[in-house]
Structures are given as structure tokens and as C-alpha cells.
């Protein structure tokens, strides 16, 4: 028989080990990619356009495409997502049929695999709307994919704003929209940023849906109607077609770096906008 004390220690050790495993997995992956990738990375790799299908040159055009596509997706999805969250939390009657429908739709959208969105985007945006393989087709498809995340997180953030803020603002003679735009949304910004960061991760990491909608052209996209190859798509093609494993790892490492940078910038700019940084 184990004494209570030993059992307590065993459980503690197990829980500690679980935590350690998580940290170890992340560390090993990043270390592995960094070690394999760093050798491929130099300034030319980052700043030069790819040549010979990526065998030579750098990955600059794919970095630009990734940022471009992610930004356009966010520009489309954030206003719609935050808007529907505001509608659901502030305007819709609880349990109205429309609120239920929007909620159900958001949940269903979140569960659909990305390749299905890709197929839809291909048929609808690329072919039916004749947008072709382009930044705009890819961004619209991505926007649909990240919409549920943005809506959900914004909803939770808005719900978490104390009801007293609303009461106080309304009692001062503010209109409903003044209350939402000046008190509720600024307080909800940190939560909304969380949704945006999750979405950025998804957009930067997406492959299948983007091959179908944005194409895999290695050229530099000049406008919304140009095709583009994002870094993840590039990584996939480099690895699958056996073009260069070293360069695949180099790209993978830069994807991680890019995500860290974008997250940091998103945090910074949105905090500024809402003035949350100097209030808390």
C-alpha cells in the first residue's frame, strides 16, 4: 500500500512530467527546424526571388504573398466577424431564431475541413466569379475559414465586458452605439486580438485551400487579381516534389519567425488603437 504522502508525490511527479513533455515537444520541433533550417537561411534566401522552381534563389515573393494574403483575409473577416459578434451579444434578443441560426452556422463553419473550403472557393470564386487563381480568391476563401474563430472570440470578449459599463454609459445619456464603440469594444480588444492571432496562424499555415484558390505561381503578386504562392504552399511543394529539403526547412523556420512577428505587431497596433496599453 502506498501512503497518502507517496501517492501525493507520485501524482505531482506525473503532472510535472506532463508539463515537461509539452514543453519538450515544442522545444524539440523548433530546435530541429531551426538546426535544419538555419543553414539554408541567409539574407539572400530571405530577400531574393526564387529561381528554377525554388531550387535556387530565395523565397521573397512567397513571404510577400503570405503577408498580402493574410492581411486581405483579415480586412475582410475582422469587420464581418466582429460585426456579427456585436449583433449577437448586443442587439439580438437572446435565443431569437436569427441569433441561434448565426451561432449554429458559425459552429458548423468551424468544423468543416479546409480542403472543402478550398473546393468551394475554387468553384465559386476562381471559376464562377472568374477571379481566377488570385490573392482575392484565396483571401475570400481564407476569410470564410477564419470567420468562425473571429466571431466566437469576439463574442466571448464582448460578453466578458462588465454589464455595469453599459449601464453607466447609458445612464450618462450615451446612445447604444456610443456605448458599444466607446466603452464595450475598447474593453473587448484584448479578446478580439486573441481571435485575430489564432486566425493569422491559420492563414499563414494553410496549404490545401490556397493551392486551389490562390494557385502556386512563384511570381511577385502585383495586385489582388494576381496569383500567389504563400510560404506554406511553397514549403509543401519544395518537400513533396523533392526540390530541396534544406530549403523546405529554411522556409518552415521563417514561417515560425513570421508568425511571431505578425502576432507581436497585431498586439502592438491594436493596443495602441484602443488605448488599452496605457490604461492597464
Amino acid at each position: 500500500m502506498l501512503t497518502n504522502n507517496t501517492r501525493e508525490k507520485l501524482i505531482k511527479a506525473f503532472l510535472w512530467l506532463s508539463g515537461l513533455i509539452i514543453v519538450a515537444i515544442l522545444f524539440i520541433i523548433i530546435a530541429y527546424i531551426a538546426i535544419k533550417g538555419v543553414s539554408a537561411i541567409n539574407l539572400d534566401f530571405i530577400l531574393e526571388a526564387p529561381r528554377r522552381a525554388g531550387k535556387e534563389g530565395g523565397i521573397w515573393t512567397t513571404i510577400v504573398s503570405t503577408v498580402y494574403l493574410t492581411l486581405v483575409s483579415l480586412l475582410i473577416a475582422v469587420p464581418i466577424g466582429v460585426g456579427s459578434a456585436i449583433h449577437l451579444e448586443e442587439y439580438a434578443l437572446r435565443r431569437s431564431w436569427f441569433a441561434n441560426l448565426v451561432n449554429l452556422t458559425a459552429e458548423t463553419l468551424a468544423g468543416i475541413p479546409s480542403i472543402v473550403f478550398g473546393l468551394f472557393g475554387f468553384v465559386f470564386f476562381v471559376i464562377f466569379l472568374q477571379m481566377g487563381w488570385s490573392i482575392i480568391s484565396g483571401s475570400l476563401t481564407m476569410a470564410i475559414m477564419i470567420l468562425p474563430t473571429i466571431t466566437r472570440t469576439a463574442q466571448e470578449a464582448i460578453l466578458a465586458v462588465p454589464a455595469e459599463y453599459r449601464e453607466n454609459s447609458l445612464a450618462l445619456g450615451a446612445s447604444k452605439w456610443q456605448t458599444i464603440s466607446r466603452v464595450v469594444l475598447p474593453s473587448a480588444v484584448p479578446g478580439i486580438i486573441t481571435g485575430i492571432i489564432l486566425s493569422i496562424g491559420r492563414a499563414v499555415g494553410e496549404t490545401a485551400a490556397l493551392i486551389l484558390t490562390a494557385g502556386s505561381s512563384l511570381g511577385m503578386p502585383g495586385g489582388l487579381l494576381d496569383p500567389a504562392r504563400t510560404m506554406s504552399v511553397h514549403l509543401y511543394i519544395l518537400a513533396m516534389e523533392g526540390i530541396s529539403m534544406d530549403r523546405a526547412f529554411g522556409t518552415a523556420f521563417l514561417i515560425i519567425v513570421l508568425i511571431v512577428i505578425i502576432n507581436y505587431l497585431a498586439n502592438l497596433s491594436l493596443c495602441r488603437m484602443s488605448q488599452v496599453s496605457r490604461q492597464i
Partner: protein
Amino acid sequence: MKYLKLKSENIKVFYKDFQALYDVNMDIQEKRVTALIGPSGCGKSTFLRTINRLNELIEGTRTEGQIYLDEEPIYEKDRDVVGLRRKVGMVFQKPSVFPMSIYENVAYGPRIHGIKDRNRLSEIVERSLKAANLWNEISDRLNSPAARLSGGQQQRLVIARVLAVEPEVILMDEPASALDPISTSRLEDLIGELKKNYTIVIVTHNMQQAARISDYTGFFLNGHLVEFSRTDELFVNPRDKRTEDYITGRFG
């Protein structure tokens, strides 16, 4: 000079099927403090919230009867609620400062009512903070977050925020219930000063407080206004047996 600032006529409030108030009639005098007392759930806060039509924020609430502010009915279809709430400010139980600086909290009301001029805003902020007896303590850190103030300071900041809108009536819903005794006595002093310029209606669960600060007192029980009279009369010579039982501490 007495002037009838507010008059409620047969006010009834329903939350879905539950009736929270039964035919409340009350005359509220200008530049006086009117206290509303009674046990929890008696309807005193609900009545307070009929005066700035705040009950309608809760889904399923229905109000019948009429309240007159300066003889004008406030329960009218086309009544401008924003304008009403500008004239009738409210201080809540829990001091709830917005997550902004001290300055921005006070400037919030004037800003939403369209004042953009910086000098004028600063003037209003200073005047309001002085009127709320807070200026001396915080005049050197107007730009620091309001959330860093103590509870008592936050409550006075909330009052300054209300004063900045230049209301005529101030509703207070148990404004001292979250405060320590020292902050409470400062708040009571402040109410004494404010009544020179404002009509104040205050809900309190503290009978000594009602007796100390108010000129008129209304006693609510189970949604009925049982008794309403001058504070000294109500506490010394209650007409109703239920009022007497309550103020002598037999229940509540």
C-alpha cells in the same frame, strides 16, 4: 421655495409575470434629498430606475403609469430617452469606472454630448472633480488609469462623471454599500453639498444614513410604497405599523 421636480403617478413595473411595483405615487421636491428605504427586493431600486427609464434595458420589463419631470411626462412614445438621462444622472451601487484615465472618465459624458473643444472639456473636468471633492487628491495625475483609485475615490469619480453632464436630478442606488466608514462619511458630506444644486433621490439599506442625509423618506415593502413623508416625521412618528416595525428593527 418648494418646487415639485418629479412626480410619479401610479407607477407599476412588471418583470414578465412578476409585478415588482404597485401604484407608486410620490412627489419629489427640488434640491432636496429623498431617501428610499426598505428590505431587499422591496422595489426601491426598481422605482429609482423608473426615473431614468433604465429598467427598459432588461428584456421583458414593462412599466405602466407616469412620471413627470418638471411637469413633462417621461413615459411617452417619442420621448427622447438620451435627453432624459442627461437631466437625470445615476450613481450605482458598485463604483464602476471605465477602463480609461481619470480625465477621460469625466470627459466621457460631455464628449458623447458633442463637446470637442479641449479647453472647455478641461474646464468641465476640473469643475466636476472639484464639485465631487476629488480634485485636490488627484489633480496631479489626471492621466493615470481610473482603476488605480481607491473605492471611495472611484465612487466620487463616478459622481464627478455624472456632474460633468450637468444633470438636474441625481439618482443614487446604495452608493455607499461598497465603501468603508470613512469613505461613506465623506460621501454623505458630499451629498449634503450637492443638494444645494441638485435634486437627489437615494436608495439606501442603511436607515441611519437615510435619517442623517435625507429630507424626505419613502418606505417600500413588497412593491408598495407604504409610507412617504418628511424624514423627521417618518422616523419619529411613523403612521403605518409596518414602517414602525421596520425602523425599529423588527424585520428587514
